[in-house]
C-alpha cells in the first residue's frame, strides 16, 4: 500500500540534467532480485560511484555531497524518467527516501508509476525550477522547500508556485489508496460491460485456454 502524502518540508537535491532515463536512475545490472526492494544502493549507480568494482562514492555527484544528505525532494530536468518502463526506477527513488520529484516534464509511464507508488511528481515550469534550484543551492540544509499536495503548491521563503495534478491521482496520494481497490469497487460495472462486449466482439474472446494452474488438480 502506498504511504499517504499530504505535505512535506525537506532537503531538496538538485539534478538539472535533461532526459535522465531509467537506465541512469537504476542501471539494469543493479536490478538483481524479483522484488520492489534492495534497489536504493543502485540508485544513479553510474554517476554515484566511481568506475571500478567497488562502490567508491564519486564526490562530484550531488547525492554524495553531505549538504544534500537525507534529501527527500529531487529537483530535476526536462523529460525525467524517460527510456525503459522499468518501475524499479521509481522503487529505487522511493526506497532511497525521495517522496517528491519536481521537474518541467516527466516521461508518461514514469509519471504514472510515481503516482502508483506514493511518490509525488510535480511539474513546474523551467523558470520556477531555476528559481527553486538557486534558492536551495544557497544553503541546502536550511533552504528546504515546502511541498503541499493539499494546497497543490510548492513554497520557498519568499515565493510559491502552484502545480497541477489530476483530481483522482491527488485523492489517491492523499489517502494512500491502492488503485486496485479503488477499481474493484466498480467490479459489477466492469462485469456488465464485459458481458455486453463479449456479445459484440466474440472474435476478441476466442482464445485457447492455457494449461491449468499447477496444483489445481486435473
Amino acid at each position: 500500500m502506498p504511504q499517504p502524502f499530504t505535505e512535506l518540508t525537506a532537503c531538496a537535491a538538485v539534478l538539472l540534467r535533461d532526459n535522465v532515463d531509467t537506465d541512469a536512475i537504476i542501471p539494469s545490472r543493479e536490478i538483481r532480485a524479483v522484488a520492489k526492494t534492495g534497489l536504493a544502493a543502485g540508485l544513479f549507480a553510474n554517476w554515484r560511484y566511481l568506475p571500478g568494482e567497488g562502490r567508491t562514492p564519486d564526490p562530484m555527484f550531488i547525492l554524495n555531497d553531505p549538504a544534500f544528505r537525507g534529501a527527500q525532494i529531487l529537483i530535476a530536468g526536462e523529460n525525467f524518467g524517460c527510456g525503459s518502463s522499468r518501475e524499479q526506477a521509481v522503487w529505487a527513488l522511493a526506497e532511497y527516501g525521495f517522496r517528491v520529484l519536481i521537474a518541467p516534464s516527466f516521461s508518461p509511464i514514469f509519471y504514472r508509476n510515481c503516482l502508483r507508488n506514493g511518490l509525488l511528481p510535480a511539474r513546474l515550469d523551467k523558470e520556477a525550477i531555476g528559481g527553486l534550484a538557486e534558492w536551495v543551492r544557497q544553503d541546502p540544509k536550511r533552504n528546504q522547500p515546502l511541498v503541499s499536495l493539499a494546497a497543490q503548491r510548492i513554497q520557498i521563503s519568499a515565493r510559491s508556485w502552484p502545480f497541477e495534478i489530476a483530481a483522482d491521482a491527488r485523492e489517491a496520494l492523499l489517502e494512500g489508496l491502492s488503485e486496485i481497490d479503488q477499481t474493484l469497487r466498480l467490479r459489477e460495472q466492469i462485469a456488465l460491460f464485459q458481458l455486453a462486449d463479449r456479445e459484440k466482439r466474440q472474435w476478441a474472446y476466442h482464445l485457447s485456454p492455457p494449461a491449468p494452474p499447477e496444483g489445481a488438480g486435473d
Partner: protein
Amino acid sequence: MPSTLFEKIWNAHLIAEGSGGGLLLLDRILLHERTGGVALQSLRQAGRRIANPAHVFATMDHVVDTRPGRRSNALGAPRNVFIDVTRREARAAGIHLFDVDDERQGIVHVIGPELGIVLPGLTLVCPDSHTGTQGAFGALAWGIGSTEAEHALATQTLRIPRPKTLRVSIDGALQRGVTAKDLALHLIGTHGSSGARGFVVEFAGPAVRDLDLEARMTLCNMATELSAFAALIAPDERTYSYLRGRAFAPDGELFERGLAGWRALCSDPDARFDREIHLDASEVRPMVTWGTNPQDALAIDAAVPDFPAVAGRLSMPAYRRALEYMGLEPGRRLQGLPIDGAFIGACTNSRLSDLRRAAAILQGRRIAPGVRAICVPGSTRVKRLAEEEGLAAVFERAGFEWRESGCSLCFFAGGESFSPGQRIVSSTNRNFEGRQGPQTRTHLASPETVAASALAGYIADPRLTPE
C-alpha cells in the same frame, strides 16, 4: 461525429470516465520475465487473483541466454531468478507461458503479432516501453509499469489519462535502400525525443500503406522514442492476410466477423486531430545517430553538429557530455567512422524481412577484420524460418554470430555486453549511455546500414554497397 481511429478504439473500451482519465477494458496482457515476474509475484502475495488468465501471455526474452545451443536459462545468477520466478508464477497463475525452450518463445513485440495475439481494434498492454510496436495492427497497445500490470491482471482494466491525437501523414515513396527505421529516425531527429509526448500517434498516408506489416512495426516501435503514448496504423488487407491462420487469431467464421468490424477501423475523412505533421518519404535518407539519445539522428552523409545547431534541444553541458561520451568532435562525418561492433536484432528490427534485407547485402561477402558482428533473430520462429531459407548461412559465412532469440545485446541486462569504448552500429532503438555495456558507443541505424558497415569496418551507406 467523425472520429479518429484512436477514438473508435477508446470508445469501444471505455467503462467509466473521471478526472483522471478513462477506465478501459483490456483485451490482452503480455508479460516478460524482467518485469512480469514481479507483477505476478506481488499480486499473488497480496492474495489477489488474475481476472482472466486466458487473456494473459508471458514470454522469456530480456535476460535469456542467446548464445548458440543455450542450455541454461540465462547467463547465470542473478539473472536466472527472473526466469525462475516468472516460470513459477506463470504456471501457478495458469496463464499462457512461452518458456525458453518453447518454439513460440521470442521477443514479446515479435511474438505478439507472430502468434496473432494482437488483433485490430484490441487494447493490449505490456510492462515494456516498446509495446506501441503492436499498434501497427490497428490495436491500441501501450507500455505500463509493474504496478499497473498488477492492476491490469487483477481487474482486466486500466485507468489512463486520455491522450491527445497526432496524425503523421507520410506522402511520397521511400528511396531504394531507405527503410522504415530511417523514416522513424528522421521523424525523431526532426521533432525531438519529446515530440509526441502525451499523444497517440497515427501514422497514415501512401508511404505508410506501402510498408509491409514488419516495417510498420519498426515505425511504431520507434514512436516510443518520440515519447508517444502509443502508435497506431489503420488495418488494411495486408494486416488481415498477415493475421489469418495465426495461432491465437480467431479462425473461420469468427475471423470473418472480426473482419467486418476491422474494416471500420480507420479515421473518418473529417476526423479532427489535435496535431498534424506532414512528411515526404522521398526526402528521407539512410539515418545514423551521433549522440546518446535517439533524437541525435542525422543523414548518414552529415557531420556531427556544432552547438548552435542543437542548442534548442540540448544544453551546452549535455552537448559536451554526449560528444565526449561518443568520442566525437563537431564536424566529424558519420560515414567512414571506424566501428568495433555491429548488432542486428531487438524488437525494432529482428523480424524475417529485416534479416532478409541485411542478408542481401551480406551475401557472398565477409565482414571487415576486427569487427564483432552479431545477429539475434527476434523469435525462435524467425530463427527457424531464417535457417530454412538459408539466411543463417549467409550471416555465418559473412562472419556474423548467429544467435538464439531474445533481446540480447540491445541492452546489457542479459549479461553480455560490448566492451568499454567500443563503437557499435546497431539496429536497436536506444543509444543511451551504457545501453549496450558500460562506456559503449551506440549508433542507431537500419539493418541494411548495420550490414554495410560491418562489411566496411566503418559506418557505411548501404546504397553504396555494390549489388
